[in-house]
């Protein structure tokens, strides 16, 4: 039943998406502006790639990007390993001592304000260092540990949801045919939850790559991640090379998401077609 109501919905959609995307588009446009004042368009010398060139000559930016990438990669891998174990424990072992606490510990990091997580982890590292002399100053290691701890919670949600949809009888059939539990996991369960593991990895990577608040608490003077560098710059106001940096990051992410989306749509279409052919063949 079209009419006034759908018009209202369409307007909300248009407004909402404009709201979400116009700021990003503006940022991209200004990244080609030659003016140092960013929002004042210098039509004589624009568009220009000068800020991109400057960005790639900027050693601190490149260093911190490299550090962020390293941390994010290690974090994603660690979070996926721990998260898969935890999701498996929660989904498959319905009863064990301390399950309630475990359930709480796996969800709490998602709802805890970042300032609290960061603060508490820093206090832990300080206390540990006093007690056992480790971790010996703060830096990439402490940041990675902190990131794994909070991004693991998100990974667990993704993998657990997928695990719940895996038909238990497949695992039982494998066991019935003589496969041992570990083998069943690697040969049957793991391939089935692989899509969730992949998206969990990406999610953990992004969370780590983006994080500012927790990182600021647990990082040391010698380790500055990209968000920390960006934050210290933009606190002082807009800066043209940040626009260039943002543009590059947005384009990379967009390309990845669009590729994943196209792939998903294709997959869905093929599935629908297969189902249709199967249906036609059966009738």
């Amino acid at each position: 039943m079209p009419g006034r109501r759908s018009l209202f919905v369409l307007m909300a959609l248009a407004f909402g998406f404009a709201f979400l995307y116009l700021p990003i588009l503006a940022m991209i446009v200004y990244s080609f502006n030659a003016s140092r004042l960013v929002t004042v368009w210098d039509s004589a010398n624009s568009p220009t790639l000068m800020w991109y060139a400057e960005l790639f000559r900027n050693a601190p930016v490149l260093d911190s990007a490299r550090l962020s990438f390293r941390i994010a990669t290690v974090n994603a891998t660690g979070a996926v390993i721990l998260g898969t174990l935890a999701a498996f424990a929660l989904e498959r072992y319905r009863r064990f001592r301390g399950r309630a606490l475990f359930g709480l510990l796996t969800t709490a990091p998602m709802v805890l304000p970042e300032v609290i997580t960061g603060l508490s982890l820093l206090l832990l590292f300080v206390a540990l260092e006093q007690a056992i002399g480790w971790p010996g100053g703060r830096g990439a290691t402490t940041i990675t540990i902190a990131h794994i701890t909070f991004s693991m919670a998100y990974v667990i949600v993704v993998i657990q949801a997928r695990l719940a949809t895996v038909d238990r009888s497949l695992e039982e059939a494998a066991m019935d045919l003589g496969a041992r539990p570990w083998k069943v996991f690697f040969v049957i369960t793991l391939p089935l939850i692989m899509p969730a593991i992949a998206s969990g990895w990406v999610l953990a990577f992004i969370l780590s790559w983006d994080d500012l608040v927790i990182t600021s608490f647990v990082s040391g003077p010698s380790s500055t991640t990209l968000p920390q560098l960006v934050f210290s710059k933009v606190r002082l106001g807009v800066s043209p090379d940040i626009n260039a940096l943002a543009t590059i990051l947005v384009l990379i992410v967009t390309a990845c998401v669009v590729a994943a989306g196209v792939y998903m749509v294709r997959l869905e279409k093929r599935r629908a077609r297969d189902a249709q052919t199967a249906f036609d063949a059966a009738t």
Partner: protein
Amino acid sequence: MNAATERLAVRLRGLGAARSQFGRACVILVPYLWLAVFFLVPFLIVLKIAFANIQLSMPPVEPVVTWTADKVLQLRLHFSNFSFVFGDDLYIAAFLNSLKVAGISTVLALLLGYPMAYGIARAPGAWRNVLFLLVVLPFFTSFLLRVYAWLGLLGRSGPINDLLLALGIVHEPLQLLQTDFAVYLGMVYSYLPFMVLPLYSAIEKLDLTLLEAAADLGCRPTKAFFTITLPLTKEGIFAGCLLVFIPAVGEYVIPALLGGPDTLMIGRVVWDEFFGNRDWPVASALAIVLLAILTGFVLLLQRVQSREEEA
């Protein structure tokens, strides 16, 4: 089968069972220990330090538990941090303001997010995927950079002021940055996807024949929306509001970048106490109070929800 092989078989079976027990223990214990060490223990330390005194050293806190000269374990709890927190109008104002900003932002996000989610859920197949991706996309682009994007837009010489001037609505540039308005804008902007996604999945799950049944029984579309669609997507609304409200209360980046010096929000105050004043005990006490508020809030919401389900 003779007795010896039978005994061997029993022992082997026992070994198998023990091995699978061991596997199970590993699966549970590894993540459990990690979370206990890096999440639970730190939390207890915050609690401990909230009850400690500040001192000029590294770390800048007095120990709570000490051995006295005559080998007696001594526990000194200072409630002064809490009385300090509750005694200072500044902190109370910061808490109240955080709740206010988060609450209003949540409502605004809901008002914009619901029709959007509705539109996406009701869009024709191919469009639905595209629109869904468009909502997800901001998730993957840097939070910090998206907040930063508003710095340029809202500036005195930014395009919004340019537009207002050109249209003759204002005659000199408005101060948009470093205002509460900018903070609300940034909050809604950053957390809108968190609102839209649970709403979308709730609306999409809604059985459309229920709306047809309502129409069949004489109910007009607008009324059907309020009597059928809205009540049946309540869980999505709860989830969306929670996902926006909780992080918004403790938010640091948005008030720090877009808010003015007088935009008091508790995340920012904790940060400043910690990094600026190096007052770890007060920062810890603030964190504990914030956590208590949020926990109470979540429990309250759960109570309301479970009572709804019972009814």
